[in-house]
């Protein structure tokens, strides 16, 4: 079973909230991702059973969204914007620095993303979808280290408040 007993109960509650079980695919995928840190194949199979569709349909839906990680992912997901405003204010340098610094760190996954709609505070990044703005490579590294050391509490891997 992919879901823990507690989460399985929650999953069933979520399914019951929708007129059609199929509509619960996305919230269940969030639930599974928060439980396991990424969206496992076993979880997609169980979601399929709970929502009455095939695993292929669950994968089809979940793979549409980049926020579902279908490969193991660090518990800290650092999303660095390199779109226009961040591009000219130093986003790529932050991305480069963090990628090198945490390249071998299993706890941290650094990804490049499109515009985070935080141009006013560029360059910006998100850690587990929490915004951090007006960064330099050094500040960004210190920030991630704070999270790693427990001085800051991250959201879940799907971005939910704990």
């Amino acid at each position, binding site marked *: 079973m992919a879901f823990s007993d507690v989460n399985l109960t929650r999953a069933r509650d979520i399914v019951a*909230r929708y007129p059609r079980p199929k509509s619960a695919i996305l919230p269940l995928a969030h639930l599974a991702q928060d439980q396991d840190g990424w969206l496992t194949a076993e979880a997609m199979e169980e979601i399929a059973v709970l929502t009455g*569709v095939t695993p292929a349909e669950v994968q089809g839906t979940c*793979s549409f969204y980049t926020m579902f990680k279908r490969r193991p992912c660090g518990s800290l997901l650092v999303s660095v914007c390199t779109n226009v405003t961040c591009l000219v204010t130093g986003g790529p340098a932050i991305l480069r620095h963090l990628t090198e610094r945490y390249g071998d760190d299993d706890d941290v996954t650094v990804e490049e993303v499109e515009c985070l709609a935080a141009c006013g505070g560029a360059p910006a990044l998100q850690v587990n979808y929490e915004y951090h703005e007006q960064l330099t490579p050094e500040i960004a590294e210190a920030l991630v280290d704070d999270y790693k050391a427990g001085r800051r509490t991250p959201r879940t891997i799907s971005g939910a408040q704990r």
Partner: protein
Amino acid sequence: MTDVNDVPKVERPPGVPMSQWPSAYEYVLPTGAPGTVTLTIDGREVKAQTGDLLIKVAQDHGTYIPRFCYHERMKPVGMCRMCLVEVEGMRGMQISCATVVADGMVVHTQSDAARQAQDGVLELLLINHPLDCPVCDRGGECPLQDTTLAFGPGESRFVEEKRHWEKPIPISELVLLDRERCIQCGRCTRFADEIAGDALIAFGSRGAHTEVITFPGDPFTSYFSGNTVQICPVGALTATPYRFRARPWDLSAVETSCTTCSVHCRGALESSSNRLVRLLGVDSEPVNHGWLCDKGRFGYEVVHSEDRVRHPMVRKNGELVECSWPEALDVAAEGLKRALELNGPKSVALLGGARGTNEDAYVWARFAKGVVGTDNVDAQLGDGIPAEVALGLPEATIADLDRAAAIVVVGLDLKEEVPVLYLRVKRAAEELGVPLIELAPRDQGLTRYASTSIRSLPGEQGETARRLADALGGARGTDAGADAAAALLEGRAGDIVVVLGRGDLAESAASTVRAATELARLPQARFIVALRRGNVRGAMDLGLAPGFLPGRVTLDAGREWFGHAWGSVPATVGLDAEGILRAAEQGRIHALMLLGTDPHDDCPDHALAEGALNAAGFTIAIDAFVTDSTKRADVFLPVTMWGEKAGSVTNLEGRVQRVGQKVSPDGTAMPDWRIAAELALRLGVDFDLEQPEEVQDEIARVAPAYTGIDSTLLRRARDGAVAPVADHRDELVLGPVSIPLTDARWEPIRPGLDAVELEDAKTANDEADALRADRLTSVAQSAGAPPAPALHRFTGGVTDTAPPARDAYALRLVTGRTLYDGGITVAASDSLSELVADPVLLISPQDRDRIGVEDGAEVRVTSARGSLTLAVRADAAIGTGTAYLPFNLPGSGVSDLVDLSTAVTDLRVESLS
């Protein structure tokens, strides 16, 4: 016109959880009030029905609007945007595949704006398309290629590198996916979900990364996967058996009927260099809607199997050795004569005939009954439904399923036995809202679409059917399940269509007969007898059944008529297959003819078949393969197969359709019916039949149910003719003179009548009316002929015996047919033989725990007849107290357990660990 945004308001009852709210948020196209609307398409005024889609109305009136995602048999999605047209007064371009016609609508499909939009869509669709047409199987018949040529810009402004994928990747054993070529029209994914109900493929990722995916470890193992290849508008999906085998312009096609099972889906059979290479589904409204199952689609490989017998053989010094046709026929005729002289006609028997055409069946029936004089003739093998039942029930057509008050499926698993009929029943239940009542011993293919499923143990089917019939007839209150089923019919008028078959070969046929008897009491009940073998219906209709003569008349009723037509008929009713095998086992059959049948592997009672084949006297095999049965023959007469001979066949609803010849056989094989005629000649009777059309004409003349279905009618009837034609004349669609067997066009392939020019249509109709009238009056009455006999009617009266009580430790065996079985079609097709599953005994989880075995463990299974060792697995689909084992899987040996003379087969299952 109804406003598209006018979504009906839904009452949301307070205190009811959201999951139980009534849902009005289905995607429903507005239909408006029923009636006729007038609109203008490209300056021409046309009439249409409210609710019709613009793209279809335009096409029906001769204006083709380009499209990729739209397919008539599926719901519109508007994914490809190719069908954009300009509608006056509507803002922007409209996708005609999802636009409903409205009164006064003015549509331009070729205006500058429309052409510019079509150019733009094609340019976008081609951004990532590799244009590898020279090495693509679709090249030459590719909708994208054709549409680009007809509607596209010719040049692209996109010069960037195209996307690349690993190519091709298998999505199942039979289908390969080339993602570079895919234009994301969603036809395959919609087919898999909407039509087949196997949503094992879906779109993954998004944007330029969109791809068709399967879930890891869960391939597209649908019985209908080949249809996605046919409807793919590019070369993204290819079938492994056809890939790189031919180019479309080298192919020639004939229209034919697939005879893999008894549904007889229409198809276009294509060959290149005298080799069959492909079968495409033809869209026949009354039969298959264009779909084929994979066994039918790829089963043509059997025709070119290396193991085919190409020349006649006779046994010399214990070995079958090749010889000339005259020698083989002489030996066969001598063997028959000897048996007749020494032991009389009752010592001669004929088994089989369900694999041939109607012409084969008729001439063999005439040979056996009119020349040899034996009625020991059976096209089934104790695994079917007696002819007196199958030929005498009030009948329904496949199309009747769509408008039935309810459908009752008794016994068989349609998905495994008659897959395209399964699609039709699924559609009726799911799309058309026909209540589906299932009566079966376990969960099977249709269960998820059934409105109610009534479970019964083997042997109790008749009693269950009685309670259901009582409830449907108004006598409620004795059985809650039957009452629930009857409640489904409230407010519904029309026939109850019963699909009747043998779901369990381990229980006696009496159980099915009893169920038929009970349900036939209902005045509104009509039946589709779903026997699986290819042309079993045609064979029985044309006399290959004990007690029957061609045309659904009993031996007694037809004695005078056929005595006149043939000269003589058997004196008494003969033995059925079980009786023949028992007589043979006891040494009373001195000459046995095996007409394309393999009792050794295909009879549910293996010990009986084995004993019979060993003890039978002179044995003549009329077959295309040496099998476990025919290897014992004294003479082997090789026959041509489907695709190698022309003729006609009758499907499970009684529809007579043509089969076409596409290739000539290797070697010297002959059509079955010619062999019968040759043997008759050697026994002193000249049938004077040279062509299949002559046989058809003789059938139309002498076989009462086939009156009027002669070669002329068959050549002109687009959808064939349902026998007896007098009861179905309104369904006849006739063309002028002769309907050509079409060259296949890519989609949807229409039956032949499309080739008729429109201006000919009126003449065609007049002629058709005349021909129709002609059919009804032309019961050929030669001078001095007796009056035509009445068709047989089944009046019930057959009772089953109550099955013995099951002891608490025994499991009652259910064994049903499975699509990919050990039959020759699968075994001799390279592509299909890979798909055969290993036999596993399925039991309920409760029984597994009681017996105390693990899934996958070996168990010993023992019946009163024999025992086997095989793997066991628990499956929630299996009812407690029963065990399921597929029939005729290589290695399953289930026929070692079954005794045809007992009502049910009880098993002991012991753990070996």
